[in-house]
């Protein structure tokens, strides 16, 4: 089992705390005048994003988390899991709903995603910042209301619902910012 000594601590290091993978955000060495030195670390749980603190005696070791950030291509969803492929080795991995989370709203296939692997299993999937998706369902916009900047809901081919300007029509492709879930523009793709 790989371990890291406190002298190796630095922001970004991946460690196991209470059986969960964490990333070190801040590493402070605190040493009372004549006392034992400690490393006080701020850590983020890689699975749920929760931030916490932990203090260890300097010189101690902590288990390393086998965490890897990779780019994988999204292939398909079989109803329960999402499948991704390494486009160099063609190896495939499946991710469950916990790992895919809201990314599922933006994936239709072929997208290159940033995937965090822990012990070779995806724990976090981040879709591309921008995706182009087709509007599969949206009421026609009201004539004469184009100047108000009003919006209406539109259902996309992935099942996600976003707010779009009134002039966007069913069957059109639009560009979405996946970080905010907001409409950016109409797309000329497709």
């Amino acid at each position, binding site marked *: 089992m790989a371990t890291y000594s406190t002298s190796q601590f630095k922001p970004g290091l991946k460690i196991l705390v209470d059986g969960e993978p964490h990333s070190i955000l801040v590493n402070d060495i605190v040493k009372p005048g004549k*006392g*034992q030195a400690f490393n*006080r670390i701020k850590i983020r749980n890689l699975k749920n994003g929760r931030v916490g603190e932990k203090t260890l005696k300097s010189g101690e070791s902590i288990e390393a988390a086998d965490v890897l950030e990779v780019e994988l291509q999204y292939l398909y969803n079989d109803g329960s899991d999402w499948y991704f492929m390494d486009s160099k080795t063609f190896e495939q991995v499946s991710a469950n709903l916990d790992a895919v989370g809201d990314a599922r709203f933006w994936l239709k296939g072929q997208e290159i995603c940033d995937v965090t692997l822990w012990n070779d299993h995806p724990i976090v999937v981040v879709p591309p910042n921008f995706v182009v998706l087709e509007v599969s369902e949206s009421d026609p916009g009201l004539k004469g209301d184009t100047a108000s900047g009003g919006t209406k809901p539109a259902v996309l081919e992935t099942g996600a619902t976003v707010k779009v300007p009134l002039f966007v029509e069913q069957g059109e492709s639009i560009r979405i910012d996946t970080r905010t879930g907001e409409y950016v523009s109409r797309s000329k793709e497709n």
Partner: protein
Amino acid sequence: MDDSKSDNAKTREVFRRRALLLQKIRTYFSSEGVTEVNTPVLSEFGSCEPALKNLSLNKGRRKYLRTSSESSLKQLLSHNLGDVYEIGPVFRDEEIGPCHLEEFTMVEWYRTNVELLFLIEDVRCLLARCGYQDTIDITTYAELFQNASGLNPHNCGNSELVSCAIEKGVDLKECDLNDRALLLDAVYVSVVEPLLKSFSPVFIIDYPKEHRAYARLSGTTETVALRFELIINGIEIANGYDEITESLEQKDRFNAENRLRKRRGLEQIEPDAAWLDALSSGVPSVCGVALGLERLEMALWEISDIRSLGIKSY
């Protein structure tokens, strides 16, 4: 080009400011009748202090780089030189960070036949002479500790310290649970220390006896150590003792430190015979303090990273 020009200017400023500061310190001690001395950096003996890691050279006979001038200065005290001070480099292995250097400059001085409060006043005067304007309060370790943790550091149970530390996310091992000095540190680091940054400058006095280091214990009750630390912006600037002057008591301290070292799985360090001999031959009653020069500069010039006080390397 612009970057290296501004680096040049920064380095020049750091070193000019240092030169002026050293002048002020020397002027102060000279006006107080304290004699400047230079003592060896290399020593046959390392420090037994469990919290310090010695740097040593292994060419032929092992020699240690001093962690402070304490031993040499105490040897000089036994020669009746009176009040002495030294400004020089000291070394502590693996202490690197925004507030730590492996090699730093220590201003260490000893005042004979005075009380610890005189030495605290002495530090105040020196800082004022160096241009430090803020007033510095005095508080006891117990008050600070109790306000922050609800526990009395002198008489609370080890188990109370353990639960407080664990609640704050400190990782303790089985062997730590009866190491009271370490448990006090664990609570201090997780509860007290984070508050210090927001405190005004303060002398912390009356340390628990587990953290007496080489300070005498007070009076007949011997519950607190006659020791102080000066904290500015949450950082330790200086550490002073009403010094142990009995050879046997000092030897007991070295042995106790080696026992603690053994328990913590650290190397045993041979007690400093020259130091013990000096005490045996007799030194006057004395209070001593060590002040980190770079730490003082951090406080004076509001510097956040001690490493910026060296030569800017390319």
